[in-house]
């Protein structure tokens, strides 16, 4: 990694986007677009679906080559910090989304076991019924706000947890209470 740190930033970005654009051009586009650059349809020529992505990648290539050729000696610098930061944020978001998706169904399942809900009901029929429809969004949302903010300033407190819950509740209420047709996550996916 020490070598990478000292390459000029422009060259590094230029090289990366050029390689990525070329790879997409050669490997992806030919296999995932049905028509060509120009198509003959009904005896007339038409612009095909391939043209726009090719133009897009050509633009990226042009920009990348520009950077490759430019004179800039600002080095890339240390990448560990940002990479770690984004990975931590992503882990928290992933965990919260899992809670959001499965929190409701899990609580219904517990409810069934405890006899609060008719056995075999499942989450689906209850996805528009309080409190079940709110559970996933609240747990996932609370964890998301609590964890991300506490990671930022180290405030892993109960008070912060309560604040996070309150905010998640408010956001949910803003969408759900006045508009009966709006669906909060995850209730369109169950």
């Amino acid at each position: 990694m020490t070598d990478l740190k000292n390459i000029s930033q422009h060259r590094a970005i230029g090289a990366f986007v050029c390689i990525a654009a070329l790879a997409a051009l050669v490997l992806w586009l030919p296999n995932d677009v049905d028509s060509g650059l120009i198509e003959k349809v009904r005896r007339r020529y038409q612009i095909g679906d391939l043209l726009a992505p090719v133009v897009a990648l050509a633009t990226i290539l042009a920009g990348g080559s520009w950077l490759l050729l430019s004179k800039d000696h600002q080095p890339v610098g240390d990448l560990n910090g940002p990479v770690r930061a984004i990975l931590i944020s992503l882990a928290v978001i992933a965990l919260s989304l899992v809670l959001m998706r499965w929190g409701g169904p899990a609580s219904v399942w517990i409810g069934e076991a405890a006899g609060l809900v008719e056995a075999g009901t499942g989450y689906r029929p209850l996805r528009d019924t309080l409190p079940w429809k709110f559970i996933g969004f609240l747990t996932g949302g609370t964890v998301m706000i609590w964890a991300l903010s506490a990671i930022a300033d180290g405030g892993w407190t109960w008070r912060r947890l309560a604040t996070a819950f309150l905010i998640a509740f408010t956001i949910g209420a803003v969408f759900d209470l006045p508009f009966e047709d709006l669906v909060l996550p995850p209730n369109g996916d169950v």
Partner: protein
Amino acid sequence: MKNTLRSLATASALVLMATSGALAEWKPSGPITMLIGFAAGGGADTQARMIAEELEKRHGWQIIPEQATGGGGAKLSAKIKDMPNDGTVIGLAVTETYGYNMLANPKAGYTQADITPLTTTAGFQMGIVSQTSKGWNDFGDVIAAAKGGESIRFGTMSPRIADIAFLLGEANDVEFNIIEVKGGKAVMNGVNAGDMDVGFMAGIQAKGVAAGDLVNLASALSTPLKMSPDVKRMDAYGVDFVLDGYFVFVGPGGMPSDAQKAISTAIADIVNDPSTKAGGFIKKAFGGPATISGSELGGLLAADAADAEKLMMAVN
């Protein structure tokens, strides 16, 4: 608050249902998701949401409308086919989704067997339209202009309709510059802006025709257009295909017949009642209801598919 109360009401209804055993009238086992294959805020979307509102009012069902816009109904169809078919999921698309659009796309990922057709709500008043200021009275005038050397830009809103435009040229020995756009609204914009000389429009021309800005040059239906009953059909210009099409409610494939019947009837009743918001809106926006359901609808979709295959053969 309304929501909370409603949720509580449904919760108690669920409990009641579980205890009181078989009921004569079909009831959904929970809320019904209504997928809408059109963009939010448009006429089709408004129609669906008004029907949903009235279904809740009349039957006490809980309806959750959801957007599933994209790919001319393909996104909706691919989504709906894997969802529960007990009547808790329905969707609003157009009949073309299960005809030409499906057959022309080998990777569509759904077939007519993957859906249960419920009922149509309204037909498309499809006509060939130009600005009144062009001075044309019928499609014959367009052909004459093309023969006179004028290059005619012909706006179409889907590949199937572009095929028809092509055949219209073939049959009359002229070549149109066919411009394919997405949706009738884009055709109307093009015609109004003068970017296109004529174009197919599926009912949105009604206001312009009534105001005298636009004129229907031909009906693309098997029947006369409601707003201009006197214009000729396309067979007068040598093309035997017709572009009859409808908004159609569907469910996942293999829906039990009691659910299918209950939902179809419930929707059709609302649509046919002009005193409801939905019925009134459909009358105003789409020229009136057209409710085809049951085996008749199945037949219609099958015929549409056969017709689409014939059309593809004719063009290629």
